[in-house]
């Protein structure tokens, strides 16, 4: 089945590019629905306590206002919090907006204004006055760390923190070289450019919900169960998602509130949450970590101890793989990891790109750099001296591991050999130059839940590929088109991929870097099945005798086939269930990142002038979209290293940032040269199509590489993120 050369593995332009550059891609708030009402939230100004009263008289009288919903008059819903569980939530009680009078975090929605136009809803919201009974809140992790605890229940689907091996305490004490340091990382917010929004099209039989989510299926199930829409047909549509980075993994406040209002009023409702509210939707947990490394004089690791305390909310035990890679990245016989949480009066943390790993690896990789300087060897040589071909924590081989090639090719490309080892030894004019590097790792896995894909032959000879998963900018439309085109031997113009609709075959969640491997394998399997069906049908109808499929797959022949067989389409469905090679192999995506910073010596302004990111991620389906993934994640890494800090005013228990002026994300002028190299890596075990996934890996090693480069430039060890100008200047004073 040829029809031209294979396109999988080629840089074909993003399939959804043209509709996006024309402004024709529709996002959640952009569906034109008849008789639409607009909603706006009123949010709590205290961090903990009770709502005593809500005076909404002025708001109700405001021209255009239709209703004001609060915990007192909202539609009835279940009092059992377990019914609010979603596919991605951690153990605990999920937040239920407008449930009762409790205020659990600052910014929590306490009332919803519904009006016949957007301006009226927004302006009336400002007229609501709420009185509270305030309770003492706890929002400072540095204080609450004293009450840190081991999460009693483990998060579903998350690999547990590895058990200790050897005797790390004793080995550390006995080590000839020791480094031990504490690192802190700030809370960060995801801030996709699209605001969280939902448009609910209400009717008695079917409720269509246009929502910003990474999982239309999860939202559909949630609405049916938690908001008691089980008697109606619920369809959740998210054809295009303007970024999410993890914040759309769970049903968000926007969809819950919009559907509550629609249900109460039996009307169609739109809710767009404003930018300042994105600080109250979820955050990357801030953390305090200590890393202790013991080594011999040649840099061979004798002990790794890594401790972390991460923030969580009062009601949920949010967990992520913060320390999971510290036991398997390097060869070391004595490892001890301690992962704990501390409760704060905040919204629950929510997975953000490379959750856990971006935080844990920052500490480990900075500590490795400190060790390199303690022994006086090159930081890259230290990594190579501790290279491991086995995952020691589980004592098993990797399904593939081309990290060594990442190190070597990245170093070559960057010109690492020209680096002078001593801090403050490189400069140009009034700028200090620093070169640093770090290793990245993320688990390569398939979706823990099964994924279904349907492929149909249409009457016009095109093939339609459908599954409920979304494309959040990752390139899913494009890679699935490529896989299907090759599997069917059809040109890509004859393949139509439909995604982001809960009415399509079940596919759990876009996330975890597993979508390409999981959905791609399902597409491959469904196409293979369909091809067999077509051949069989062709034989039955006597179109071909010899079973040659090449000419059979021309549009004319396929149309004939459908006509002769008396049906208007032919389809096949495949379900991919997580291939469990279980305990036999460890599987991970790796990267090595090399960073150059230039720092104005007087002003302490840091510029990240060059990044070289080398990535080993198995088979690359589309180098162009893959490169964009890594560049985008690296840009986010620059933000983590230098800018992003969702700092709290602990007097008020409230995030001090309310907009992009207070919370700086990298802008165009902050980003210079980023080069991406994918090293050759073949893996026939990780997934049926040899793909490992790319969503997270690009974010893991960037921040430590930059922090290490800053040390190299200045001689100042920066152990707290973000490394802002004030922190740098304070140190040099």
């Amino acid at each position: 089945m040829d029809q031209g050369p294979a396109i999988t593995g080629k840089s074909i332009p993003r399939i959804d590019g043209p509709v996006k550059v024309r402004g024709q891609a529709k996002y959640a708030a952009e569906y034109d629905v008849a008789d639409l009402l607009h909603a706006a939230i009123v949010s709590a100004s205290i961090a903990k306590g009770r709502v005593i009263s809500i005076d909404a008289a002025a708001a109700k009288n405001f021209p255009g206002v239709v209703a004001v919903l609060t915990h007192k008059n909202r539609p009835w819903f279940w009092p059992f919090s377990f019914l609010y569980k979603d596919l991605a939530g951690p153990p605990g009680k999920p937040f239920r907006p407008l449930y009762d009078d409790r205020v659990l975090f600052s910014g929590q929605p306490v009332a919803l204004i519904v009006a016949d136009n957007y301006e009226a809803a927004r302006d009336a919201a400002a007229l609501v006055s709420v009185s509270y009974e305030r309770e003492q809140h706890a929002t400072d992790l540095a204080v609450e760390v004293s009450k840190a605890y081991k999460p009693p229940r483990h998060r579903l689907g998350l690999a547990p923190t590895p058990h200790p091996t050897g005797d790390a305490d004793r080995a550390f004490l006995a080590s000839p070289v020791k480094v031990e340091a504490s690192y802190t990382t700030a809370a960060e917010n995801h801030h996709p450019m699209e605001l969280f929004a939902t448009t609910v099209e209400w009717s008695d039989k079917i409720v269509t919900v246009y929502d910003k989510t990474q999982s239309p299926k999860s939202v559909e199930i949630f609405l049916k169960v938690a908001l008691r829409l089980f008697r109606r047909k619920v369809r959740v549509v998210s054809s295009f998602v303007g970024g999410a980075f993890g914040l759309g993994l769970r049903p968000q406040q926007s969809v819950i509130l919009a559907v509550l209002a629609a249900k109460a009023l039996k009307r169609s409702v739109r809710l767009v949450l404003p930018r300042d509210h994105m600080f109250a939707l979820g955050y990357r947990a801030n953390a305090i970590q200590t890393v202790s490394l013991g080594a011999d004089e040649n840099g061979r690791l004798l002990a790794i101890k890594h401790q972390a305390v991460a923030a969580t909310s009062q009601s949920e035990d949010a967990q992520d793989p913060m320390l999971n890679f510290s036991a398997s990245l390097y060869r070391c016989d004595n490892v001890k990891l301690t992962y704990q949480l501390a409760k704060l009066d905040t919204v629950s943390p929510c997975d953000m790109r490379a959750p856990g790993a971006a935080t844990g690896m920052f500490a480990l990789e900075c500590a490795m750099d400190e060790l390199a300087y303690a022994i006086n060897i090159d930081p890259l040589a230290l990594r190579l001296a501790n290279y491991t071909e086995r995952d020691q924590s589980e004592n098993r081989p990797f399904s593939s591991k081309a990290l060594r090639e990442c190190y070597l090719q990245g170093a070559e490309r960057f010109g690492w050999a020209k680096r002078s080892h001593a801090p403050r030894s490189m400069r140009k004019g009034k700028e200090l130059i620093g070169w640093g590097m770090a290793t990245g790792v993320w688990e390569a896995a398939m979706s823990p839940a099964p994924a279904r894909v349907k492929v149909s032959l249409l009457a016009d000879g095109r093939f339609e590929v459908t599954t409920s998963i979304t494309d959040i900018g990752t390139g899913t439309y494009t890679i699935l088109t490529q896989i299907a085109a090759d599997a069917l031997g059809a040109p890509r113009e004859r393949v139509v991929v439909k995604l982001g609709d809960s009415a399509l075959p079940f596919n759990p969640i876009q996330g975890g870097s597993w979508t390409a491997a999981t959905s791609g394998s399902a597409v491959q399997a469904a196409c293979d099945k369909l091809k067999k069906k077509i051949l069989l049908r062709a034989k039955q109808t006597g179109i071909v005798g010899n079973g040659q499929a090449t000419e059979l797959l021309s549009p004319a022949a396929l149309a004939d086939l459908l006509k002769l067989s008396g049906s208007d389409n032919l389809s096949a469905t495949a379900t991919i269930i997580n291939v469990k090679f279980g305990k036999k192999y460890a599987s991970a995506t790796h990267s090595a990142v090399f960073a150059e910073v230039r720092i104005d010596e007087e002003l302490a302004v840091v510029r990240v002038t060059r990044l070289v990111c080398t990535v080993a991620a198995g088979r690359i389906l589309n180098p162009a979209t893959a490169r964009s993934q890594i560049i985008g994640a690296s840009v986010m890494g620059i933000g983590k290293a230098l800018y992003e800090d969702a700092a709290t005013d602990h007097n008020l228990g409230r995030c001090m940032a309310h907009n992009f002026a207070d919370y700086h994300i990298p802008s165009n002028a902050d980003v210079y040269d980023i080069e991406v190299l994918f090293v050759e890596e073949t893996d026939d075990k990780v997934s049926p199509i040899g793909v490992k996934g790319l969503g997270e890996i690009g974010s893991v090693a960037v921040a430590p590489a930059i922090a290490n480069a800053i040390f190299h430039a200045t001689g100042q060890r920066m152990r707290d993120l973000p490394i802002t100008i004030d922190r740098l200047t304070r140190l040099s004073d």
Partner: protein
Amino acid sequence: MEVRANTALHVTLTINGVERKASIEPCVTLLDLLREKFDLTGTKKGCDHGQCGACTVLINGKRINSCLVLAVSRDGSEITTIEGIGTANELHPLQDAFVRHDALQCGYCTPGQICSAIGLISEGKAKTRDEIREAMSGNLCRCGAYIGIVDAIEEVIAAPRRKTVR
């Protein structure tokens, strides 16, 4: 706060070459007018505070954050939104360059980036990559597609003018 009287005003705008009229309150921004009343949703809302550039349109040829513009204050203006750039059959050279350089991922900031880049090119000031970066920094992209964005704009600036830029 005083309850607002019903004070709808008439406004006439030429949007993508078509005259459109509306009767709206003075507090309605151009962005909300485009998105909510005219169903021109190619112009995006990312912050509503003039900080992200997702809402960039061209008013009389100049790039402007439409979330900061009260629609009634621009009565009689010529407005170009992303829907008015390129034709049904042919992409504008910048749109085409954005696709080829993969200057987008989720696509949400993209219409604003393209409108802003058209304004930038007609301003005629930015020539080098550094100047483009600086002058495009009012348009945030959380997907981090900046390198592709600069590549695309640089290419169009360097190309002999194929078409008059709107």
